[in-house]
Structures are given as C-alpha cells and as structure tokens.
C-alpha cells in the first residue's frame, strides 16, 4: 500500500472541530460537503467519530459495507456519479447498535488506517468530521495530516457560553498544533417559530461571533435552527439541495462558498 498516494491526491483537507458535543459538527460537515459537490467539485467525508458515527445516516449510506481493493479500502459512494465519497467506522460494524468500546490506542490505530488506507482518488476536498474534545482522535488526526498540508479547521459552536467555553479550549488546541483556523460557525443561532414567525434565541445568541472577534478569526456565519434541517439529517436527504431557499440552507451554502474561495487560494500559492 503506497502511503503517500492516498492523501496526496486530495487537494484540500478541512477538519471540522468543536470542543463541545452536539453543536452540529456532523451537520456542518455534511452540508458543506453536499454544497461543494453541488458546485461540481469532488468531495470526500471522513468520519473519525468512532463512538458516535453520525455521517453515514446523514448521507443516506447507513447500511453500506466497504470493500478492499489492491490499493486499500474503497470508500462508499452515495450515488453513481462518485463525486461524494464517505468513510466511517459505521461501515465496519456488524450491527449498527454495537458500541465501539475502545480505549485510546485502539482508536488511534483505526484513525491512522482511515487516513492512510482509504483510496480517495482525486478529490478536491476531504472534510474530516471529529468527535468533541481535544484527545486521542484529534491528536492522531493532526499527526496523520502532518506533511499533507491541511488547509485548516472550521470551528463549530452554538451561541451559549457553555459551548463557547469548550470551543476556546479547542482554539488553544489549534494554536498548539499550529492548525490554521479557517473560521467559526455559530450553529443553532435563533429559531423562527413556524406558527408566528417570532424569532427565539433558544440557545442564546452571539457567542460564536464574539469569540471570533476576540481571537481575530474569520466569522463564517450564524446558522438558524430549522426543523427541516433536522428532518433531512434524519432521512439522509441533502438539506442544502431540498430546501435551498431556507435561511439555514442559504447560509450553509455561503459558508461552503467562502471556504472554497479561501482554500482555492491556498492551492494556487502552493
């Protein structure tokens, strides 16, 4: 297996991080991937959340298996165009309710395999979804991407202080590991009541934007809560495609476009 080739053929690598769980990392990862795919780009999504792999369901490939080729593991393609490739531990589980009860060393070994042994082919973007925290998975991903020029990190938070508190720590992680921060997304930022159109700040407001200002990092946008987004994720439907006129879809598409513009400049410089 040629270790170099598998990641070398991937033009841009973006890691989705948050110190906090449940803020929408997988949601943002999948919708950015789908949005980039809609723009005609070839995209991969690598799910390194081994205990709680959400990506396959969100991309409607929940019951798929992976198989080996002579060059390594072949990722799962949700459609025949093969412009979206997916890898997750969920594909390796015998039963989807089986817990993955692994300590750090075993998780690290699996993540290293995911980084080196998946035959991504020529991808424009590889989006790497992570579990919450600053531990084994994150350290191993950073080490595994060394030498392959990752474009950087998108930090996802919800507006409230409890979430932002963890994301500050994630920023420290990025600084210590010298990962560039492409921007902050404030997810679940406001809910427009479908009955009366009143906007409620269910999880407070503005924390992500304030964090970006404080640390002088780009603010990518506020994504409001939209039950239709939740439903699409549940059903493996592309929200950015099915509900493209919704405010949440518009901002997610804009975030994807911004990331594409920023990272495309990286490509032309290197």
């Amino acid at each position, binding site marked *: 297996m040629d270790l170099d080739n598998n990641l070398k053929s991937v033009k841009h690598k973006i890691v989705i991080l948050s*110190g*906090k*769980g*449940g*803020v929408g990392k*997988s949601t943002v990862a999948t919708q950015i991937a789908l949005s980039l795919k809609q723009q005609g780009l070839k995209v991969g999504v690598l799910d390194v959340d081994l*205990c*709680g792999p*959400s990506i396959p*369901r*969100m991309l409607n490939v929940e019951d798929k298996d992976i198989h080996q080729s002579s060059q390594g593991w072949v990722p799962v393609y949700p459609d025949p165009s093969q412009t979206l490739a997916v890898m997750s531990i969920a594909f*390796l589980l015998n039963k989807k*309710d*089986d*817990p*993955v*009860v692994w*300590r*750090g*060393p*075993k*998780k*690290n*070994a699996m993540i290293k395999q995911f980084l080196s042994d998946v035959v991504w082919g020529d991808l424009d973007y590889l989006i790497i979804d992570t*579990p*919450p*925290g*600053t*531990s*084994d998975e994150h350290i191993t991903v950073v080490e595994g991407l060394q030498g392959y020029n990752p474009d950087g990190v998108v930090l996802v938070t*919800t507006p*409230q*202080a*409890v*979430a932002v*508190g*963890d994301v*500050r*720590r994630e*920023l*420290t*992680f990025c600084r*210590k590991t010298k990962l560039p921060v492409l921007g902050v997304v404030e997810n679940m930022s406001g*809910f427009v*009541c*479908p*009955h*009366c159109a*009143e906007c*409620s*700040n*269910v*999880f*407070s407001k503005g924390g992500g934007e304030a964090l970006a200002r404080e640390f002088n990092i780009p603010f990518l946008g506020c994504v409001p*809560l939209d*039950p239709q987004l*939740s*439903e699409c994720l*549940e*059903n493996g439907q592309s929200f950015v495609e099915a509900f493209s006129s919704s405010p949440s879809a518009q901002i997610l598409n804009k975030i994807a476009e911004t990331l594409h513009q920023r990272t495309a400049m990286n490509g032309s410089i290197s």
Partner: protein
Amino acid sequence: MSEKPENAPEHCPGTESEDAGKSSACQGCPNQNICSSAKPKGPDPDLAVIQERLSSVKHKILVLSGKGGVGKSTVTSMLARGLALDDNLQVGILDVDICGPSIPRVMGLEGEQVHQSGSGWSPVYVEDNLGVMSAGFLLSSPDDAIIWRGPKKNGLIKQFLRDVDWEDTNYLVIDTPPGTSDEHLSVVQYLQHAVIDGAVIVTTPQEVSLMDVRKEINFCKKVKLPIIGVIENMSGFICPSCKNESQIFPPTTGGAEKMAEDMKVPFLGKLPLDPRIGKCCDEGTSFFEEFPDSPAVTSYQQIIKDIPDNLLFGNQTKDLLHMYLTFIPLFTKSFFTSTIFKGYSSG
C-alpha cells in the same frame, strides 16, 4: 471482557486477557504492540482504596449519553440541585469530562481551584450540602486546554475517585463526556468494587441522537451497569410569543420513549426545551430558584422524585445482603434462607 479486534488473528486471546500481545498467536498482529504495552501488572491496589473512600457515599449515579450536547451536564446539575433542595441530603457532583468540563460554569464555580486537606482533595461547595469536583478546577485560565490521550485521562479520573474526600454523601452524581471510551471504561473499572447504583441516560428525541444512545445502552449492558432509566431532553419547544409547541429535534423514529421500550429499559420522562435553562447554565444559577413556574421545573421534579424509588430496592437489597453476609456464621442455614426471603418480599 475479552475483546477480539476485527483484524485479530484466529487464536487471539482477547485484548483484555493477561496474554494480550504476548501469546504466540499475537505474532504479526497489527495490534500486538498496543496490547503488550497497555497491560497493568497484577491487581490494582487503588481499587480497594477507592472502595474505602467511596464507602461513605450511599448512592452513585452515572449520567451518560452516547451523544454529545444532549444535556448531560444540565441534567446532572439539575438532578443534584434538585436533590440538594432537601437539607437532610448531602449531594456531590463529580465531573469526569476532562476535555470539556462544563460543570464549573453550570454550577457558578468558574475560577475556583481545588484545595487539599489532610484527608484528601476537598470538593468545592455551592451550598453546604452540595459539593462539586471537576477537572475544570485544575485549569488556571478558561482558555487552557487539556490535550491528553487516554492513559493520562484515566490517571486523573482515578485520582478523583481515590483522593476526593466526599465525607458522608447521600448522592454522588457523576457527569461524563459523550461516548463509550476511556473515561467510561475507567469509571466502571475503578468503581467495580464500590458499587454504582446505575446510569441515567440522556438523549434528545431525534434518531441521530438515539443511534448513539442505543450504543450507550448496549455498553451499559456489556459492562453490567444497571440502567436507572432514559430521559428525553429538549422534547418540544413552547414559543414564548404564541405558546404553540414546535419539535425542533423531531422524533422521526418515535423518540426516546419508544427506544426505551424497544430496548427494555425504564423511561424516566421528557424535559421540554426552555431557553431559560441554557441561560441559567451559562450564568451558573439555579433554574429551580430563578424560574420555579416553568413547566420544565415540574418535569424535573417528577424525575427527581422517582429516582430514590428506583434506587431504593437496590439499596435495601445491598444492605440486607451485607448484614446477612456479616452475620451468617451465627445463623443456621434454614434461618438464613427464610430471613432472605422475608427481606425480598418486603422490599
């Protein structure tokens, strides 16, 4: 537990076996180095120390979820605050989420530090009868990150369990990070002699959460951790303007109640999404005190009221068994048998 990895050779002894990494079958296995270097040598003397330390804690409740962001820390703090409203009870919170310790902020204790006394580490007290311990108290600034791999996290968890002096405590509520990994395995392993009453499992209604929570329930079953029950959090949002209810996280597959029924575990109740709960968590104030009229308070009170009942039989059984095992040499076999039977039927 004797796990065999997917890529293990045919006669793999199992990763938890004494021969892991060392048997002839391990030669050439990609996991050999990991297995042979990760083994403790002999029984761990700290387990007995932990058992002794926690013998003064009557009930230990783990708050778990496979999924992040469902409200474990919120539920932990609310359960603890709710139990502590009874001045006769002594309550503790132990936060073993080392990378994302939310409990200090949620309990209004940000910036507090750990103090050592002659008898060990002292919890930080919110009220006279409510003490807290968290990795957050070990950080000197809110931006400090704990970037540790598993073994180091395990070491800190063991220290918490071994060295914190809870004194006489009725309820110790243990908040955990999401997942089924080092922290969860360590807590179960280190507390194996200290007896955990069980786990409260928190989820939100949607399938993307339930998927992970089913795994957590299976984890509990695998490590023989009793399940006190499942709580469905963020279950419906009442618009403060028009008072209509919306399902922000729609239960497309029946929600937590159906999941609990399918997996044959108790369902403890639903908690609505009230933005003021998040506000109290951000400000470190008690939701019970600030907004006593919220429907969420009623829901929490019902769940908290039921918890001691869910634990009571278990505790009675433990107490009875302890008593009988201590005095068994003094009784004849037939007397012992009839007294045990009476104890169960009156529990």
